[in-house]
């Protein structure tokens, strides 16, 4: 047999070519940075306010926590080749349940939160069952779910708001990690946590890089690696310092960060995560490779339900009131974040990191435009155009 093997050393490629090839991955990060800088300059000019003030950074996290948390689950749903339109209604419904339990029944937070998560799991299972085992299109099932759970929310709350919540429940969203070093400001706990995690991120990246090199796996050029890590570490330390000089680390930020790391690990390093990508990439091939596609799709929706429930309770805690109007349109923000983050409508493609960047692009724009006093009308138009532009950019990059 004639064996002609053509070796090509990918490492030798200049950094610029690498950047061009992986433009998608870096493009969105650069877009986020550009948007932040834009608001930083314009807000200073127009209003003489610091866009990246400690308070506003804290606000950014608090405002966007629900989008990011749900987007983690939505990424899995979309990667598997499905969609979930019901997350806003589910979040509202679980928020209402938590209101009834917490306010009307006076149950403590450590009962209410797990119960809410279980409700979310049951709702996700109820929808996932039809999608996975009966092959009912997820668009239809979750569109129905969107109506059903919105209706149930109205019914449960009787059209009224329920509140106020106990301090314990409110701390889900508005609480901060107490300062263990007790030196008041700057909050040393926050500083230590952030510096340690920045160091951890860089160290993990470096270790993976070394391991990849040992196995000859293709990797980014060292210049890009160092610059990227320097930016990430600097951003983390900057944000940490700002937070430390305000009220410390919000509880939500910790929840978000932990979930993000968990889901990044799940999608990239575990067999079930890998299988979800295969299902979205080619369902039939995945099935013929011995993958239990039904079960995995089902569990993906259960997971989505749990995350929607968590987001619902966080939003309720933030508003300090369970309201029938909660979560209206959340599904669109979440889905938009996932697509801006580079996921493909047809499934099989998408990364957690991309989703986080996508969610922050949406979040920063929401926040910045509100500060500038741009009307909700223009905000929607601009957000819509950004979503469209991001996806066109994606398709254009692929067809090149």
């Amino acid at each position, binding site marked *: 047999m004639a064996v002609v093997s053509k070796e090509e050393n990918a490492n030798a490629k200049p950094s610029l070519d690498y950047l061009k090839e992986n433009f998608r991955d870096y493009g969105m990060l650069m877009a986020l940075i550009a948007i932040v800088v834009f608001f930083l300059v314009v807000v200073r000019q127009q209003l003489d306010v610091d866009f990246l003030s400690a308070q506003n950074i804290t606000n950014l996290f608090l405002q966007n926590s629900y989008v990011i948390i749900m987007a983690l689950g939505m990424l899995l749903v979309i990667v598997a080749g499905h969609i979930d339109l019901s997350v806003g209604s589910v979040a509202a419904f679980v928020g209402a349940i938590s209101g009834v339990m917490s306010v009307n029944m006076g149950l403590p937070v450590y009962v209410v939160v797990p119960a809410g998560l279980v409700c979310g799991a049951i709702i996700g299972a109820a929808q996932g069952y039809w999608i996975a085992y009966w092959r009912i299109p997820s668009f239809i099932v979750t569109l129905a779910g969107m109506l059903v759970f919105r209706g149930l929310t109205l019914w449960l709350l009787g059209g009224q708001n329920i509140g106020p919540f106990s301090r314990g429940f409110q701390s889900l969203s508005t609480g901060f990690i107490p300062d263990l070093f007790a030196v008041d400001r700057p909050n040393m706990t926050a500083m230590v946590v952030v510096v340690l995690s920045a160091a951890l991120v860089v160290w993990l990246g470096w270790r993976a890089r070394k391991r990849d090199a040992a196995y000859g796996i*293709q990797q980014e050029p060292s210049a890009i690696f160092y610059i990227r890590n320097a930016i990430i570490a600097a951003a983390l330390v900057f944000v940490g310092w700002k937070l430390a000089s305000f009220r410390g680390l919000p509880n939500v930020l910790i929840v978000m960060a932990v979930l993000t790391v968990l889901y990044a690990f799940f999608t990239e390093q*575990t*067999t079930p995560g890998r299988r979800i990508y295969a299902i979205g990439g*080619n369902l*039939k091939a995945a099935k*013929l*490779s*011995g993958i239990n596609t039904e079960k995995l799709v089902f569990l993906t929706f259960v997971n989505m339900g749990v995350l929607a429930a968590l987001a619902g309770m966080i939003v309720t805690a933030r508003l300090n009131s369970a309201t029938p109007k909660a979560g209206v349109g959340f599904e669109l923000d979440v889905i938009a974040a996932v697509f801006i983050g580079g996921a493909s409508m047809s499934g*099989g493609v998408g990364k957690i990191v991309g989703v986080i960047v996508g969610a922050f692009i949406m979040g920063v724009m929401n926040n910045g435009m509100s500060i500038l006093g741009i009307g909700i009308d223009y905000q929607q138009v601009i957000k819509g155009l950004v979503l469209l532009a991001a996806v066109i950019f994606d398709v254009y990059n692929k067809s090149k």
Partner: protein
Amino acid sequence: MAALLEMRGISKVFPGVRALDHVNLSVEAGEIHAICGENGAGKSTLMKVLSGVYPHGTYEGDIFYDGAPLANRSISDSETKGIIIIHQELALVPLLSIAENVFLGNEVSSGGVINWPETFNRTEALLKKVGLSEPPGTLVEKIGVGKQQLVEIAKALAKNVRLLILDEPTAALQENDSQKLLDLLLELKTQGITSILISHKLNEISRVADRITIIRDGSTVSTLTREEISEDRIIRDMVGRDMAHRYPERTPAIGDVLMEVKNWNVWHPEQHTRQMIRDVSFNVRKGEIVGIAGLMGAGRTELAMSIFGGSYGRNITGEVRMHGKPVDTSTVTRAIDARIAYVTEDRKALGLVLEEPILRNISLANLAGVALRGVLNKAQEATVAEGYRKAMAIRTPSVHQKVVNLSGGNQQKVVLSKWLFTDPEVLILDEPTRGIDVGAKFEIYGLMNRMADEGRGVVMISSEMPELLGMCDRIYVMNEGAFVGELAREEASQERIMALIVSK
């Protein structure tokens, strides 16, 4: 009689393949002309040239129709001249009524508004002609395949057909439906409609055809008149080509029976009364390459997929034994655990995740092999893929390359690697060389020999008889869902295989 159709020196080239090479075909007015040839001989391509699927200018040669040169720009162009082709896969819309289908694209209308009473009246008249008594408002999905075929013909009649081309019209039909269709062809002949019939079934051909043209490897071999038609002659002309040195040498070392399938029966997944596999039994030995021959639609893929995790069909009965012990192959996971692998005939749709890199495709069926307690070891995954890249000579700069960027032959090597990584004892290879070039075919044959030499059992399904004869130690012949013969290497020949297929 004068020739209605003359095709002279037709050549059609696809990238890398010369599908037609100076084909001549002459069809006289009012005759039924059969075209015969192996799968891939060029019959369908020739008909696509005739019907305008490949427009004038994309092929070489001349076509004369009714004495005048024919230069079709599109299908509708040829249809206005009364040349209508009925494809193997029916082109009816299942959820529309018979009447709507018959006049689809040819609606009885004025100013875009459909005249329904007239549509129904005309449909009724046409249905009577083809011998159907269904009301014209019946949805097409409610009637059987045989009747759907007749609706197709009614649709052709609605367009004032003069030359009717049928591409294997009876392939999906049961015996009595086939007879009805053939009777209808004879009836249409008396009304002056000329037909071209593409068929594998020699008994049908000898029953209705006036003349027969045989095509092999993209060239006309012969045109026989009714008196000259004999099965022997047709088979001899259909097959027979140089087979030397197209297959790597191998000295078989055949051991004990590895896998045994007994009394395998499978029914169609939707049409519940249709049995697709009838009482099939076969075995594979250690180190043996066993072939399954048959024409398209014989049920070979259905057999393989039903064995592999019940991936096709319903009401599957029968037994699979490995080393003499019954094994459960009712899900893909269990079949893999029983150390059976199935390499699909459609690698793009069923075998690969095209947008993912090579290494992820190779590990997909055995992720546990590169993971510890559910956590992937990516370095190990890369090492495994790299190993297969070298062993299978997959031509790619890196195993991180997306599979979609590879050639057909290299894609096939990735699929084979994926299944070898599950360490199967038996590999069922379904059309392993379909759509890949000659050089890559030779490599795949070499890999198959290596699998056998490693002591695995290989089942090779192929529509190309020469490759079965060149590769297999034993060949089963399959036709219409049943095994109709078994030939040892020494006794197997294309003529004998063909004879077994058509004997039914």
